[in-house]
């Protein structure tokens, strides 16, 4: 590929606009650090940028472990928005998937010969559970015209309270007030990652929580990329998101497409729950508190930063996880870790400027008559948020006449 082609590619302009938003966000972060404690501000920024690397290999492993669920929820929200739906219900699908994975991880008794498949069964079930949880908003949207945003918000709360109830009923460790550890066979294997991400303290090998779940998340992103961009099925789903009525006219079963989009998005979130919670002793457990799972909402900035592109979402999730880990280490300088959320929020806000910026970049590198225009979503009679969510996608190239 020659240099000119690289600059002309849309991926390049998108990446540049995201990276400049990140720079602005970090700059604001530095200002905030200066305001709160000027003497250590630069050191603080260094810690944020170092992220997981502050704790060497184990720290990096931890940030990859943290990235795994938000890759999945980011994919879920990104996929739904490519198909014209705003999946704000990723939290509910995530926590329901997590519970089902833990339930099977704790309760399922397999004969010796089948024990190897325990974690696979648990993951598959978490996926199905997430999909079923999203099926309800999908059906409601397609057949009853219920806005998917409102039904998903309701499903978030129902899922949260339901999971709290069932955790306390079936898999509760009342000493720690957390969900129980899953069986050894239900822990996702490491597949060699424990040989990379560990720290030696004397003779003790301190291994990071990361496991093959990370590979699975990457694989899921690639599968979604292929489905969306290389298959007729993906094309139909996208067409439906772009204009439901035109798709119907073109012979696509638009109701089926809406339901399937929602279910696939739910499966991704549910799988994310399984991937996070099927881990060894030092990993996460479900806390029984009346708070909606934050991983679902964190998927929204990841999807936005990754421009709803599955590959972009991987990098966005890695970045968010990286600086979130940095925020944890920032506490040693007496800074408040919430500063990271502020930085991410500012990055997201400035990515709103990206259209402006993309036009500037395209003017710098592109032929004059090719221009990026804003994608304002389905014309005609859009559903609420349909325009907004379609707008999550990249700008669309248009040739001037």
């Amino acid at each position, binding site marked *: 590929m020659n240099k000119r082609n690289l600059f002309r590619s849309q991926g390049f302009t998108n990446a540049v606009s995201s990276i400049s938003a990140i720079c602005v966000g970090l700059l604001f972060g530095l200002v*905030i650090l200066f305001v*709160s404690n000027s003497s250590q501000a630069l050191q603080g920024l260094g810690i944020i940028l170092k992220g997981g690397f502050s704790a060497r290999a184990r720290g990096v492993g931890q940030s990859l472990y943290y990235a795994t669920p938000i890759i999945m929820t980011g994919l879920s929200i990104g996929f739904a928005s490519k198909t014209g739906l*705003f999946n*704000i219900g990723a939290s509910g699908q995530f926590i329901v998937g997590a519970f089902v994975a833990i339930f099977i991880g704790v309760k399922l008794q397999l004969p010796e010969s089948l024990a190897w498949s325990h974690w696979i069964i648990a993951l598959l079930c978490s996926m199905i559970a997430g999909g079923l949880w999203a099926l*309800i908003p999908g059906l*409601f949207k397609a057949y*009853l*015209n*219920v*806005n998917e*945003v*409102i*039904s998903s*918000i*309701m*499903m978030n*709360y*129902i899922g949260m*309270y*339901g999971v*709290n*109830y069932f955790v*306390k009923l079936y898999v509760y460790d009342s000493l720690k007030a957390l969900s129980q550890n899953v069986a050894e066979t239900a822990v996702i294997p490491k597949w060699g990652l424990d040989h990379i991400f560990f720290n030696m303290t004397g003779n003790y090998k301190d291994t990071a929580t990361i496991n093959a779940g990370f590979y699975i998340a990457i694989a899921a992103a690639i599968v979604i990329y292929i489905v969306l961009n290389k298959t007729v099925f993906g094309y139909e789903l996208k067409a439906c998101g772009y204009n439901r009525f035109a798709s119907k006219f073109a012979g696509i079963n638009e109701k089926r497409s809406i339901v399937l989009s929602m279910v696939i998005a739910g499966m991704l979130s549910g799988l994310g729950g399984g991937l996070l919670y099927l881990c060894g002793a030092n990993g996460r457990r479900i806390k029984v508190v*009346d708070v*909606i799972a934050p991983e679902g*909402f964190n998927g*929204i*900035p990841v999807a*936005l930063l990754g421009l709803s592109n599955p590959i972009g979402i991987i990098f966005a999730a890695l970045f968010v996880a990286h600086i979130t880990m940095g925020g944890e280490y920032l506490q040693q300088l007496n800074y*408040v870790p*919430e*500063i*990271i*959320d*502020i930085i991410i*929020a*500012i990055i*997201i*806000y400035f*990515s*709103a*400027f*990206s*259209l*402006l910026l993309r036009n500037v970049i395209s003017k710098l590198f592109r032929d004059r008559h090719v221009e990026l225009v*804003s994608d*304002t*979503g389905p*014309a005609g*009679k*859009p*559903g*609420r*948020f*349909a*325009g*907004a*969510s379609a*707008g*999550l996608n990249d700008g669309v190239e248009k040739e001037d006449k």
Partner: protein
Amino acid sequence: METIIFLVQQTWFFSIPLLIVALGGMYSDRSGVTNIALDGIMIIGAFSSIFFINQMQDIMSGQPLLLLAVLVSVLSGMITSLFHAYASINLKSNQVISGTALNMFAPAFAIFTARMVQDNHVQQILFRNTFRIESVPVLGDIPIIGGFFFQNNYITTYIGFAVLAVAAIVLYKTKFGLRLRACGEHPHAADSVGINVYRMRYAGVLISGALAGLGGLVFVIPTSTNFNATVAGYGFLALAVLIFGQWKPIRILFAALFFGLMKTIASTYSGIPLLASLPVPSDIYKMVPYIATLIVLAFTSKTSQSPKASGIPYDKGGR
């Protein structure tokens, strides 16, 4: 009777914030800008006004302090919503982006500032509740109605009803309301008859910011004695109430009351003899408002009509 009066009084505490915030969202949506930042703006409004009360409560107390806090919450809400307005109107960006950014920014900002500014470096902001009205003079003595509306209440409840009345009149009986609705339905048509779409949309978003900020304060005052950087997802629930209420003021009132009543039953069922005797665990009760809303929605949404242009940036040169 005691129980019913108690239920009604509690229902206000849950319904009024939802009502105010959903009405705020209505102005924004009707002008053509989807405001999913309601939750974040509520948090900022609650944070700044509760912090104001925290600082001023040694000097003053009671209703004057609360009214000043109301002003603070309204102002801070408007300022916050300016960011959303600028991104989604001037920059024509996707309206979910700035909404998400604000929702993420608000709790982080509240925690960060509280821990930086307060001497004890904790994120909770404490306040003394000196605002409860035991009984409104004269009106509180009316049998039944006095119990429902004028005892054990807060001045914010009446502000909520005032907001509702103003919203119903403004939206349907004034020039401004007509123009606002036109901008949300067909901005190009509105533009062609000389309405400044950008200005109307700014007005819509600013009003929604003011009301969301107010809603944050109204939510925290009766239900707690400290502010912990959260409004328990009420901004998202208000969004649900707004859709449930079909973007119409009176229907929003009923949606908010319905949801508030369900929520009250869920949180006070142990005080209701009939429900307390049933062998149903508390988590199931907590689910009831959400399940009930879903069921009602399933039966009422077939003819749902959102403002047509909501969520779509207005471009003068567009078709």
